[in-house]
């Protein structure tokens, strides 16, 4: 799962699920995607950061959904016909249950193959723009896809217990 960046030299081809937030194209490693579901009713979680849209019932399991657009400070996602939730799965501890989280996005695009050699590191913009959860920029034929380090997105969303545990240790 975590071999994307480390084994860059081998120039392996990875599959990414690409999707849109406004007109920007993003990608998540396909192995971390569990499923894509339509937007269902969400229950707001009180006292959580504003990008946490709430929780949903995914076949009997309650999982949180975060609004990526809000997270990236691009405004709030307006729920339309094409909006959907990408359910991602991250393995926090080995052998443990993976944590599932939903990402609310505007539109799913496709699954693309991107060679590792075609991925460029995220440019530094300086200033306030935080690029730490960008794995890199993947170049395909005609466009550029912003590849997300989804684990990091979650970790920095101050949502998970892992994070709070880490804070305690400091």
């Amino acid at each position, binding site marked *: 799962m975590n071999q994307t960046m480390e084994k860059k030299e081998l120039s392996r081809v990875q599959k990414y699920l690409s999707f849109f937030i406004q007109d920007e194209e993003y990608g998540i490693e396909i192995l971390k995607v569990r499923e894509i579901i339509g937007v269902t009713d969400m*229950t707001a*979680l*009180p006292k959580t950061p504003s990008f946490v849209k*709430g929780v949903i019932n995914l076949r*009997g399991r*309650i999982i*949180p959904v975060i609004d990526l657009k809000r997270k990236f400070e691009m405004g709030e996602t307006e729920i339309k016909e094409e909006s959907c939730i990408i359910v991602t799965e991250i393995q926090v501890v080995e052998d443990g249950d993976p944590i599932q989280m939903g990402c609310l996005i505007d539109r799913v695009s496709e699954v693309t193959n991107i060679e590792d050699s075609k991925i460029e590191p995220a440019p530094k913009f300086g200033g306030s723009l935080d690029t730490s959860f960008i794995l890199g920029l993947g170049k395909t034929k005609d466009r550029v896809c912003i590849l997300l380090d989804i684990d990091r997105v979650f970790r920095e969303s101050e949502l998970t*217990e*892992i*994070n709070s545990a880490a804070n305690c240790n400091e």
Partner: protein
Amino acid sequence: MSIRQRIENLCAYIASPKATPPVDLKSFLSRIQETREDALLDLEGLDSILQTLEAWMDSGKELGEKEAKELEAQIAKFLPSLQKKDAPIEEIDAELLGMFLSECKSSLQDLEETVLHLDGISGKEDQEDISEARRTIHTFKGECGVIPLPEAQRLCHLAETLIDRSENFPVDPVLRLIDWLRRYVDLLAEDAHAKPPENCELIEALMGLPQNQGSTPKALPIPQEEEIPAIHTDENIEIEVEEDFLENVPEFISEALGHLNDAEAALLEYDQGDKDIEHINLTFRAFHTIKGVAGFLGLSPIVQFAHNTEAVLDEIRKGNRECTSAYIDLFLQSCDALKRLIGVVEGNQSFSHAELAHWNEILSKAIEGNLSPEHPSRSTPLPHPQSPSNPRADAPPQKRKRIKIDTSIKVSTRRLDRLIDMVGELVIAQSMINQDPQVKLIRTQRFNRNLSQVSKITRDLQEAAMSLRMVTLKQTFQKMVRLVRDVSSKAGKQVHLEIHGEDTELDRTVVEEIGDPLVHMIRNAVDHGIETPEERVAAGKDPTGTLTLSAYHQGGSIVIEIQDDGKGLDRDKILAKAMERQCLPPGTNISELGDQQIYNMVFLPGFSTADKVTDISGRGVGMDVVRKNIEALRGKVEIDSEKGRGTTFFMRLPLTLAIIDGMVVRIGKERYVIPTLAIIQSFQAKPHQVQTIMDQGETVKIQGQILPLLRLKKIFELQEGQEDPFKGLLVNVEANNKRACLLVDEILGQQQVVIKSLGKGTKPVPGVTGGAILGDGKVALILDISGILEAASTNRQMQGV
């Protein structure tokens, strides 16, 4: 004179009217007569018994009390060796045994309950219970005879005789019999041909011989070893056992020795020409099991040793090495060495570091196939097949048969949760179909019938799925009855245990986890909480202390309460100890500390106010463990204590999967579930009831009480929701002896909901215990009433300061 003749003489003498046999000689002698002479193993033992008897016969006088007892003890010691030898090894019907074993556990449980109930009742007051216990043992005896399990049958018979003979019900011996049977049953479940565990002491007890009352049967030698270091030379290995595992050690030792005996038998069989690889496998498994259990108990030298031997065995098992008799020798000696190592744990053997290192070297060479012809030259000779210390060595080792107990299987909780989730979804999907307007248009009778059939099945399925994880606390509490009995007699206290709410159902995982903390807390309560009878009388209390163990639901969690009427926690002593150990954060103003804060110090690691460490408690480990375990279950421990009046421990446990009755309320667009248990009433407020205090806190006056008015909208920082307390509804809630009124928009109804965690993906939200999936598939948050009230009251205090 041959033994047979001597016995016949004795029999003749007993039959004559003038003889007054000191013990039940008749059955003993006839048993020996039934036995083939060549099968009599312990000839020396028999000889000494016969000599005593002959002396008695010759004198023609009655035997003195002391001598009679000695004789009886001798017989008791002799009998097991007889049994093992002459009992023919009959083929055991695996299916029959499986059924028997699965029934056994519950019937033993019942028996123990009955017996404990009888404890303390003198005379034959409670005939009903006595005859029930007797019946159970009798049935047991019969069943053991059918299987056949001669050893168990015999012991049950002895117990029966003892019950008939005794004036009071023989609680102790019967309890020991139960323990023994449990161990045996466990062994049998592993291997149909398992040997019965060691039972000499038990037989003595069952024959009515005096015992050291008050000391628990398998007296734990380890604590003594810790306190008074055994006389070891410096280089000897000392194996320390953690306090938590002390109880498991005797079992481990007897099991491990059993395994090693089996392994030895198998090895000898192999050596004598039966080159079945199964023998090696059996030996391998024996070492492997010992390694595993020892690892669990933290006995590292044993783990290391077993592991090394296992590695060599594995080479052979895989066929990498040929199993020559040199290897067999090595393994047999390993068995001996390991037995001695295990003896070190017991405290009656020694084993030097150098020797262990030497063994490790030999074994690791053996893995390479480099078998040195010289084994560690030690005093222990190679066990001879006919060696009397190992009576079954020459018995043909049976192939191990695993008995499958079909009434229960182990399923991973993850799968179970998945199943329960899916069933929950099925219910929702099914109700959605039922309510679909299109479906409602179909009005054929057959369709309706089928549809309602589906609903019914779904409901049943849901119920069945829900019940899968729930178990009652009955078994756990029952164990405590036993514990209180043992600990109190050991500590010289009189304690009466009351149990309430043992039928409270809890998630299985929770029930499994609370056993340990309960043991610690009860031990503490008996050892430190309750005073000795003399102290109690001096304090004007009943000499018998009362310990109450109760379980109940409260505000969506389960509370297990341990209450004693002992001396209570000593605030000043705790404080003094805390200062001495510098547990207090610097700059703490002692006078500001509340009772709760002080009491909570007993949970600090290593904290103990006990003046002396006993083998029951006092090391200060227990309460730390309790808190850790309970917190791991996301529960809480609280203490309430009054000096001189007693202490109460509350364990508040969440119901990870329990179903609760909930009131679904609406605030704005969101729905929330309030556990019904926390609700006292709901009402529409009238203007005269609501009052603002200093323009900040709002209060509601109801039934003569003035309660704070809490707006969930404000607490949860919601956008929508009713502001006007007279337009919405007020729900009067209670938790932790705190009350308040919550303002909600409306009450939607009451329903049972399954508490689900919001998952590891979210940080715990203050005021929310979890989520529930409502009938339409949407999630509603379940309110943590005690959390909300707590937060509200501390805020208020802070504002006040």
